[in-house]
């Protein structure tokens, strides 16, 4: 049996935490100065940072429930990472506050005339009060998922024997099944409110799934990068082996394909239907410089990672896989920029801008600011608990799994 002391996070975590906090603080000051001079651009950039980093935090709730439902060694290995990421929810809410208070400086629909057809037909849904209320409700839903899952996991660590530990595992698994359905619904509503509403006259019913798949891909990439960083330090050097990375690499490959599948589904249906109120989204994004981002996503968010991750040897080498994971995370940010950047602006009275006019230095600074704070808080949460589920009935099997072929 393993004691708590065996699986404490390595001391380097503290160092990473201060680096993240320092970078985040400097970037935040730069962002705050920039926002003072241009509130709308500042908030748009902040939303980009928020939606990318909250993707890691909120996406980890889904992956946490997914690994309870499917089981498997990969889930045991990354469970503490996704748990720590899910516990960043309070910070995600704080990061959300500028958007909540700056609502009317960010979303063009808050300036639409009352007789605009989107405002008439959607009625109460398109009021700032209901938008704020809904956003708070989403966070309550997320908290209601994060809190019990983390509580039961801590109770499992404190279990006297493996029978008691197995009961906590069973409870988390039973909770995850139905909650997974609610989770996808909440994510759909939340991302429609937070991102799709930037484009008030356009709609897509697969929108929530774009985020569910993209967030899962980001979480797997993030976990691989962190595990590769920890794999040659105690205690993870006793745990991780090439087969763990192989399995996580397969999941990265799968979710790269799922992301492509959902995005292409959306595009194919809109392209086939050819209805003016839907096609505007893509017509604008295939012009004005945005077409380079669109093509770049197809090449570097799909084709390149797909072809590289197909190879078995690549997935078994931790450092190589981690470099691909970092690359995918950067492409996730570009993908988010492709959704947010071209949307209508208030200062141009509802027109989007071409890529070069739209791009601002704050689009780089704000994600670094949010990311620095998020990473620092993540590392703080990660170091608080043993970095493997020490009493899990499947722990030893999960460790042995890595050494097989």
């Amino acid at each position: 049996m393993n004691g708590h002391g065996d699986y404490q996070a390595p001391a380097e975590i503290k160092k990473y935490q201060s680096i993240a906090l320092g970078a985040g603080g400097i970037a935040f000051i730069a962002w705050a100065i920039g926002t003072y001079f241009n509130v709308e651009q500042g908030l748009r950039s902040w939303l980009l940072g928020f939606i990318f980093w909250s993707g890691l935090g909120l996406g980890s709730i889904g992956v946490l429930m997914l690994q309870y439902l499917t089981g498997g060694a990969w889930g045991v290995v990354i469970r503490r990472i996704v748990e720590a990421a899910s516990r960043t929810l309070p910070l995600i809410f704080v990061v959300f506050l500028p958007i909540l208070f700056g609502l009317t400086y960010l979303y063009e629909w808050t300036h639409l005339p009352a007789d605009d057809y989107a405002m008439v037909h959607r009625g109460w849904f398109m009021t700032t009060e209901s938008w704020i209320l809904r956003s708070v409700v989403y966070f309550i839903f997320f908290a209601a998922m994060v809190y019990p899952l983390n509580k039961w996991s801590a109770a499992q660590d404190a279990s006297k024997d493996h029978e008691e530990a197995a009961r906590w595992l069973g409870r988390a698994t039973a909770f995850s099944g139905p909650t997974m359905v609610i989770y996808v619904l909440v994510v759909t509503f939340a991302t429609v409110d937070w991102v799709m509403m930037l484009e008030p006259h356009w709609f897509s019913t697969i929108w929530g799934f774009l985020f569910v798949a993209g967030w899962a891909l980001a979480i797997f990439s993030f976990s691989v990068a962190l595990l590769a960083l920890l794999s040659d330090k105690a205690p993870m050097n006793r745990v991780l082996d090439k087969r763990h990375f192989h399995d996580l690499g397969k999941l990265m490959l799968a979710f790269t394909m799922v992301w492509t599948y959902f995005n292409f589904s959306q595009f194919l249906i809109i392209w086939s239907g050819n209805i003016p109120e839907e096609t505007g989204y893509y017509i604008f994004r295939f012009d004005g410089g945005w077409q380079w981002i669109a093509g770049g996503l197809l090449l570097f968010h799909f084709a390149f990672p797909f072809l590289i991750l197909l190879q078995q040897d690549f997935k078994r080498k931790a450092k190589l896989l981690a470099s691909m994971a970092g690359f995918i995370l950067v492409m996730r940010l570009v993908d988010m920029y492709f959704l947010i950047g071209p949307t209508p602006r208030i200062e141009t009275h509802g027109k989007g801008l071409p890529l070069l006019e739209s791009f601002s230095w704050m689009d780089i600074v704000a994600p670094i600011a949010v990311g620095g704070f998020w990473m620092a808080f993540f590392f703080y949460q990660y170091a608080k608990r043993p970095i493997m589920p020490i009493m899990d009935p499947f722990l030893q099997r999960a460790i042995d799994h890595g050494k097989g072929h």
Partner: protein
Amino acid sequence: MQKKLYGLMAEFDTATDLVDAANRVREAGYTKTDAFSPFPLHEIDEALGIKRSILPLLVFFGGLGGLLLGIGMQVFVHYIDYPLNVGGRPFLSWPAFVPASYELTILLAGFTAVFGMLFLNGLPRPYHPVFNVPRFALASREKFFLLVEAADAKYDYEETKAFLGELKPQEVFDVEE
């Protein structure tokens, strides 16, 4: 030696003995060898020096062929052979070609995987000389067997039999053709 021999086979009691013996046999320079066990032994591939299968590469090119076939077929039909105006869309409507091309990629990759696997491992095979050894039936229950084929360049009946005898087997059998 009246009958023509397919090879020599040693029987072992445990998986560890088999893997140790397989290592010795490989180090001695034998290449046409095989091992039989009631359950999968991951170490045996390395012990016998079995190379990675080329099947994944075949599957990749099978899939690529399916993709090109799918695109080519639709371009030929809709652009070259019988251009048809569908709702004013261009003849070369690549988004509409993707689903069928994708399906053909999967189909041909799947076919290549199944039939390539059968081609490479030689299945189905109704007759194999190893079954001429009556005790070989135990390979699917509790015993482990190591085979050295007579076709091996280093094979010599007396020498190989003596060598296998040194590996502490339960027994060494002559496998008749």
